[in-house]
């Protein structure tokens, strides 16, 4: 019997909503944070809270593939939705949710930002890609530790960036909060033709972000697939630059999917993928084991 997929949504502004069909048209069941939280009760226990499922949660276990878009949860959203949980940290929340879907068929992993492969800051993404052996370059960068201003003289045309802004590559973007004065991060300004590669389930979607033409389109598709496998991420978009010298440089992998939201081929790929997922009778192999294989030396 087919098990419906469920899409856990952080907000109605999620670009993924433009790519998936509505539930009535055969798309995944949708659930927001408030509804999800209504299925659990937290007993604060002696030292650690205990997550108790409500009777209503029983049917959640019948769902198959879970598309978890709650990775951007912060403590404020949690406390707004989850009365009586006290000062619950997002990391704890993600952990508690694991017990609702014991089969572990989740895209994306249950973890707070930066705590899983699919939500890594930029330099860490580049490191993971660089050591993978995939034939793609990564940008050069320097970090300043604490308040210090690093030496950027070895970088060609450095710009300052936030390590978390994946698709914004203009110099002078405002960097708020502690990141503004601490741990300054400088990277070489991208050069060449910006290209988009996206992974939607089993299929790859590509697009030039400037101009009409993708140089070496098959190479782009191939590298997109390899990098998305490396990050164990079947739904993501990636920014590349194709330099004048023919060097392809990986710049960022993002789960946001804002760049493919209006793309008809992305929608079609999504529909085919969801149909294939929901047809399976048993849970698919948990994402974590694919990642372990990818990271093996």
């Amino acid at each position, binding site marked *: 019997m087919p098990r419906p997929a469920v899409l856990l949504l952080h907000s109605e502004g999620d670009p993924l909503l433009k790519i998936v069909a509505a539930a009535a048209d055969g798309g995944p069941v949708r659930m927001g944070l408030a509804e999800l939280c209504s299925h659990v009760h937290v007993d604060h226990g002696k030292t*650690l809270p205990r997550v108790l499922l409500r009777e209503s949660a029983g049917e959640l276990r019948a769902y198959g593939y879970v598309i978890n878009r709650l990775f951007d949860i912060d403590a404020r959203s949690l406390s707004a939705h989850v009365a009586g949980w006290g000062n619950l940290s997002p990391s704890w929340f993600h952990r508690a949710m694991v017990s609702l879907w014991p089969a572990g068929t989740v895209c994306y992993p249950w973890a707070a930002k930066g705590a899983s492969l699919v939500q890594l800051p930029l330099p860490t993404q580049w490191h*993971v890609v660089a050591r993978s052996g995939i034939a793609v370059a990564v940008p050069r960068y*320097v970090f300043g530790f604490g308040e210090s201003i690093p030496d950027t003289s070895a970088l060609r045309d450095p710009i300052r960036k936030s390590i978390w802004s994946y698709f914004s590559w203009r110099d002078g973007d405002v960097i708020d909060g502690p990141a503004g004065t601490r741990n300054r991060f400088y990277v070489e300004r991208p050069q060449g033709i910006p290209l988009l590669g996206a992974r939607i389930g089993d299929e790859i979607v590509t697009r030039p972000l400037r101009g009409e033409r993708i140089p070496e389109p098959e190479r782009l598709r191939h590298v997109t697939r390899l990098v998305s496998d490396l990050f164990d991420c079947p739904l993501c978009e990636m920014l590349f630059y194709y330099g004048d010298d023919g060097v392809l440089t990986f710049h960022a992998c993002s789960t946001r999917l804002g760049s493919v939201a209006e793309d008809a081929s992305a929608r079609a790929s999504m529909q085919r993928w969801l149909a294939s997922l929901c047809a399976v009778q048993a849970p698919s192999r948990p994402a974590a084991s694919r990642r372990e294989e990818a990271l093996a030396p």
Partner: protein
Amino acid sequence: MATPSPREIFQVVETGLDPDGILERLQLARLALQRDRLAQAIGGTPEAACLTASYEQLGAVHQARLLLSADLGEWLALWEKERNEGVHSTSLAQLEELLDSERIAASALGGMPCPLDEAKGRIWSPMGDYSFLHQGGSVEVIPAPRIGDVIAIDFDSPLARSMDYASGVLSQPPLPLDETEKTRAVEVLQAGLELIDASMPYYGRLIREFTRRIIVRKSLESVSDAVPGASIFASEHMTRQIGAIRMLNPHLPEFSAAMAAEKILHESIHNYLAACEYVHGSFCHRGNEVRPVSPWSGNPIPNSSFIHAVFVYFACFKLMEAAGEAGLLSAPEHDQARIRARTLQFVSGFLSNQSMTDFLITAEGVDAVLLERLDAMQEAIRARVRVEEEDVEYA
């Protein structure tokens, strides 16, 4: 006495026990190395004979006090760094002053004639636990207040009053503390240490061994003076300032014994691990450029900081769990909700899908025993959480 291995050193944090005197053995190993480094720094200089004579005059106890002091640690680390870089702002004259200060301490504390020149004003011992003032023909000995019998609370040594723009605590301009505020700070820090002694006695011993000086900085008259986003309470350690930690605003009434306990333990674990790195080498031999994201703060931090954080939060959890189970946190003065939130925060960082060693991203150059213990601590916390969840029921 054999130098303890890294595995033994980590075990004290993991088990909260020290049956084999590991704490003392590590301190002795560090003491011997610091002595050798000092000898190397002095040796070959024109002043070598004179400085060596001053050092030997101190006798064993005061030599040890000097070698394990924050002031000497700071001088020696900077001296060595500058020699490597060809910069020369530290001087042997500064070392001579430290030797003189400890010589003054040795005489004054030993009840012997004290070579303190009245013109020099108030002199602090390199450990920051005493100051001395020549007044009207005699030398007054002014001990710093102490907690736990051995840890000096340092309000006004030159180090305590210094400005350091790279420090979260010492970058805040100092405000003077009145006697009431000093008393309040000492009492709450003592209460925090007592909480640790009662819950995890060997952590109390670790703290006393590796933290001998708590530098207090007052930057606020009251909590309401704080600028939004700025720290009100903070703590810090600086590796080269051996045995010292810094606290920001512990004089404020909102600073509780539970907060004091957490911060004292947190920084002391850092100091303890720094001693391990001192003796056995840095945890991360490769550069710290590729930074893991801390699952506790969400900030990118160097590998070495991440490794420290795993031990620190593991120890903090063990402390809160032990204190809770012993009923030490149930009194009305403890903010239950806050303590629960903090405990949860300590645990949360261990609960992602990734193993701790996967977080490191660059595990190359990190000792295999250390990697094994990081994952073992994560598994211990996960097992603790699993036991709580085993009887998942319907509400």
